[in-house]
């Protein structure tokens, strides 16, 4: 009897491997875990997109649960994402901070004037230094930041209704509840 059971070992091994490999078929290799989740926003000091004289630092983003959105005029998926961001902005759930990534100032401003501006503040990251420190590898990318300025989640790709309902909004509610307990808004 014991010997018979031993004969089943290869079959069991095969099934275990089969399950793992089958699951692997549906993984998206583009979905990388951000190395920055759980870490504070990297220190930066950059101009506001609309105003050269207005400097924004990582400290300016603290205090509220917020969404950092990396975008650029050269990025087609950002154009696809834009109407949804406008909708979010109207709902006023949380501040959306834009990071205008490796872009031209005039073109970015023109784009916002034409299509609407969903951003509370827009940070002008012309040479992509903040993007590099954030580990951005393409646009659009979005970061959920808690009220202490700690990055909680990174989403690479355009935000749409599904991602918002399934992932982002539940996390935001949780973070906002935690922020309230802490006494922030």
């Amino acid at each position, binding site marked *: 009897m014991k010997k018979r059971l031993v004969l089943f070992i290869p079959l069991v091994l095969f099934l275990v491997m089969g399950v793992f490999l089958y699951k692997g078929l549906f993984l998206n*290799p*583009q979905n*990388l*875990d*951000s*190395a*920055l989740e759980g870490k504070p926003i990297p220190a930066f000091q950059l101009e506001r997109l609309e105003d050269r004289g207005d400097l924004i630092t990582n400290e300016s983003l603290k205090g509220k649960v917020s969404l950092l959105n990396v975008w650029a005029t050269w990025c087609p998926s950002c154009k696809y994402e834009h109407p949804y961001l406008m909708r979010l902005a109207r709902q006023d759930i949380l501040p959306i901070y834009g990071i205008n990534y*490796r872009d031209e100032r005039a073109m970015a401003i023109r784009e916002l004037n034409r299509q609407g501006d969903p951003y509370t503040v827009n940070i002008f990251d012309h040479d*992509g230094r903040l993007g*590099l*420190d*954030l*580990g*951005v*590898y*393409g646009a659009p990318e979005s970061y959920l930041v808690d009220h202490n300025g700690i990055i909680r989640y990174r989403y690479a790709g355009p935000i749409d209704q599904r991602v918002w309902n399934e992932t982002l909004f539940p996390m935001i509610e949780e973070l906002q509840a935690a922020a309230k307990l802490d006494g922030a808004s």
Partner: protein
Amino acid sequence: MNKLIFKFLGMILLSMTLISSAFATPVDTYEFKSVDKQKRALELAHSLRCPQCQNQNLIDSNSPVAQDLRLEVYQMVDAGKADDEIIEFMTSRYGEFVLYKPRMEAKTYALWLGPVALLLFGLLIGFFFIRKQRITEVDEQELSAEDQKELDKLLKRADK
């Protein structure tokens, strides 16, 4: 006639340059402080993966991210940073993913030691298998005294 040949040669030359440019890797005009540093920086950039086009290293890839990261590696090497520091810089931003050669740690033991374990397992099975076969062979050769007598009898009968 001569003109035609020249034209033909010209076309071949032109097409050759076009082909070679299509396969060329991106060329940077970065000047290193020393040849040693250049060698080290290139080696390092070769061992780091571009986060955008995932099957290319930082040298091969022409994506903006790879360009940025490549330049960052060059500058850090020139500034006298150690390899470890540069790798730490990259992994703290882009994760372990950028390392073509994963680090040895609890998470990657299976990756590093798995093949060795499988090899040992295979050798072990092979060893037992061969030993078992040898034992059965010996079993077959040994006949009891009675059987031997019986066999001799039969053989004699067959001779007659």
